[in-house]
């Protein structure tokens, strides 16, 4: 209830025992268990902000609506609960697009609310008008425009239900400002049912039987674990299955933390920048069990040469994922946790010592290791040290680029829901606001954002949100003066023509390692000075020996803290499977 001292629309409604649309919305959000609300007010959503005033929900003022979407996303990824974000009409709505598609591609449950111009103005090119439902349609799981205040409560209830059931995803609700002000007597709908949407968690028994048969017959089974395992909370069940049937485990970027990294069955990360052992195991196994993964093109490489001799079981809650890129022998449509529970219970216990030894051989042949004797600071070393000093127990968010891949390789999370990264859409700038969102949900945890100098600049203004709200995030900017991943591709595939990827003011002067002298260049902006402007401290480091001290200082700080790790622009991410190549063409390292 509003506790505003001046008589507002909300209060006027209260006096008559009726509720405004905005009050109904806030009441519905509270009943759904919403704790935080990330967004920016504007003309077309002021009644909502008025109704939020004094509510139990913490209103977080972000500095850009995109930041709000990623905060809601980080909140959702780190808790499994629905994140809520808001923008006003027009630009407020269009600024949500990237964040909503980011969540949609990674199946993250969000509810996004936008104000809309008054009903009678819709379609008139009114001030701050955008066709929000038209814009949001392809970037959300579902979306609504509320045209009658009597539909509002049911719509909000449906939105939360749809966002978090089946294959989760973002749902958008557009609410014209007159609907926010309209008053009705209202009761909260306890139960809802959507006639055309009945997601089922349990798979068909015949599909499970078939999968069990295949697992029992396999000599070289491999578990390929994806983000769906994190979303469904299937870690304990996957562990049981892997142990009982003695199956080695590889995982995607999205499933960092889903399987214990120090377990003997753990092989590791696969895909374009994954481990030699994991990718080779994909190619050589005779049974590939996909658990909540979707055979993304960054995992399969060229489909025609992908894991040709294996039979494939595909466990996925979304039937549209099955057979989409790779034909499968056994489709199991259902929630990963529910399916794997059954599999673990019913498969025969087995041992595959020869297969396990083979995988181990690949691991020993090309382990993921940091090169010794480097004179410059190594990004992998920074991340490895962070892992050591936080015991793998921090919540880690990343932007998109080289630093993301190094983090994936060297920060294996102790538990699921702790690795926040934009896997599907690859949204630069995701990291910092996502980390902040996670900090709101997990105030007692250590939250770290590992970012690139290019990626971080995309959502840097949210530093103000961090300071304003007193939420600490450790930021490690891996600064290589370039859009590093772009530069890596230009170096390897575009004859070292570094077009549009240099972030310094010196242009081509520092394109080569020979020209590169740490500290001897003009980099705009100075990240430490940026942090200083927000009242935050920082450490700029140049050598491996400085890493431990810097991380310890950051961990001890009571506010957000920057470690700027100055690395050579020549640092590259390996292994690498070039775009358009198959998993057998993996480049382990450049001589």
């Amino acid at each position: 209830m509003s506790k505003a001292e001046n008589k507002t629309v909300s209060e006027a409604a209260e006096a008559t025992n009726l509720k405004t649309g905005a009050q109904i919305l806030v009441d519905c959000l509270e009943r759904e268990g919403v704790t935080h609300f990330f967004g920016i007010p504007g003309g077309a959503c002021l009644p909502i902000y008025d109704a939020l005033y004094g509510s139990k929900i913490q209103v977080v003022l972000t500095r850009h609506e995109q930041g709000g979407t990623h905060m809601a996303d980080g909140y959702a990824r780190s808790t499994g609960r629905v994140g809520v974000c808001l923008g006003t009409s027009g630009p407020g709505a269009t600024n949500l697009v990237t964040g909503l598609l980011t969540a949609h591609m990674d199946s993250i449950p969000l509810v996004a609310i936008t104000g809309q111009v008054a009903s009678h103005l819709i379609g008139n090119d009114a001030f701050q008008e955008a066709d929000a439902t038209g814009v949001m349609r392809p970037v959300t799981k579902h979306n609504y425009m509320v045209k009658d205040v009597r539909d509002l409560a049911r719509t909000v209830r449906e939105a939360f239900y749809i966002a978090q059931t089946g294959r989760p995803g973002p749902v958008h609700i557009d609410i014209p400002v007159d609907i926010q002000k309209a008053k009705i007597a209202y009761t909260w709908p306890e139960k809802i049912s959507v006639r055309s949407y009945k997601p089922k968690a349990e798979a068909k028994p015949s599909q499970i039987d078939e999968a069990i048969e295949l697992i029992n017959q396999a000599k070289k089974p491999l578990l390929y674990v994806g983000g769906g395992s994190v979303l469904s909370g299937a870690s304990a069940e996957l562990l049981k299955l892997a142990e009982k049937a003695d199956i080695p485990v590889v995982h995607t970027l999205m499933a960092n933390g889903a399987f214990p990294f120090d377990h003997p069955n753990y092989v590791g990360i696969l895909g374009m920048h994954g481990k030699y052992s994991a990718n080779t195991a994909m190619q050589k196994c005779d049974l590939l069990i996909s658990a909540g993964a979707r055979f993304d093109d960054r995992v399969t490489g060229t489909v025609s040469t992908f894991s040709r001799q294996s039979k494939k079981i595909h466990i996925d809650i979304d039937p549209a994922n099955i057979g989409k890129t790779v034909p499968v022998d056994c489709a199991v449509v259902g929630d990963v946790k529910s399916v794997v529970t059954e599999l673990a219970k019913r498969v025969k216990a087995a041992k595959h010592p020869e297969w396990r030894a083979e995988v181990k051989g690949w691991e020993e042949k090309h382990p993921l290791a940091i090169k010794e004797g480097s004179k410059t600071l190594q990004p992998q070393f920074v991340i490895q040290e962070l892992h050591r000093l936080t015991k793998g127990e921090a919540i880690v968010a990343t932007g998109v680029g080289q630093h993301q891949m190094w983090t994936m390789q060297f920060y294996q999370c102790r538990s699921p829901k702790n690795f926040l990264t934009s896997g599907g859409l690859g949204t630069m700038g995701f990291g910092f606001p996502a980390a902040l969102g996670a900090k709101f949900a997990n105030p007692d945890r250590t939250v770290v954002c590992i970012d690139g100098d290019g990626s971080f600049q995309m959502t840097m203004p949210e530093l103000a949100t961090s300071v304003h709200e007193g939420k600490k995030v450790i930021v490690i900017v891996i600064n290589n003066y370039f859009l590093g991943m772009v530069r890596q591709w230009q170096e390897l595939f575009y004859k070292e023509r570094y077009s549009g990827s240099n972030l310094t003011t010196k242009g081509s002067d520092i394109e080569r390692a020979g020209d590169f002298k740490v500290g001897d260049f003009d980099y705009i902006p100075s990240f430490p000075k940026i942090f200083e402007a927000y009242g935050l401290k920082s450490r700029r480091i140049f050598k491996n020996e400085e890493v431990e001290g810097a991380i310890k200082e950051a961990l001890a700080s009571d506010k957000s803290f920057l470690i700027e790790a100055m690395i050579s622009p020549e640092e590259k991410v390996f292994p690498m499977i070039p775009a358009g190549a198959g998993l057998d063409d993996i480049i382990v390292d450049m001589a």
Partner: protein
Amino acid sequence: MPDNIGRHTISVLVENRFGVLARISGLFSARGYNIDSLSVGTTDDPEISRMTIVVRGDQRILEQVVKQLNKLIDIIKVTDYEQTPHLERDLVLVKVTADKSSRSELIQICDIFRAKIVDVAVDSIIIEMTGDEEKIEALLRMLRPFGVKETCRTGIVAMARGAKGISVAEIEKVMA
């Protein structure tokens, strides 16, 4: 035509709400697919509409589109008639140049096609005919020499042969 390109007639039962058509057409347009024919009308339940979509394209991509159609929240049931014996009907209105000298020949053609003349003017007539695509194409071929001034088609509607029906009552039984 390459082997994997096929013509699909897809029937979709949807909630009768604004935005549903845009959701459906978006799945085709996002893949650069043109819809050859589309017809929409309510069913015996006014809350539910039925759409019939005819589209040509790569088998795998269309399979994916059908799966994505099934995922849309407002969609109740999707049926691809490609493998099912079914009827297709399209209604066409054709305005043809017709004067004293050609009118009787046009009437004969209409008789053969079981088409109706629904409007007559001094120098033109409007012909109405129902049939599948081939029959309509055949009629138009016959009429072109007379001078086709205008055509308008409703788009194809389709229904499977046999006793099995698509209705919300039956679907709700299955989904419950």
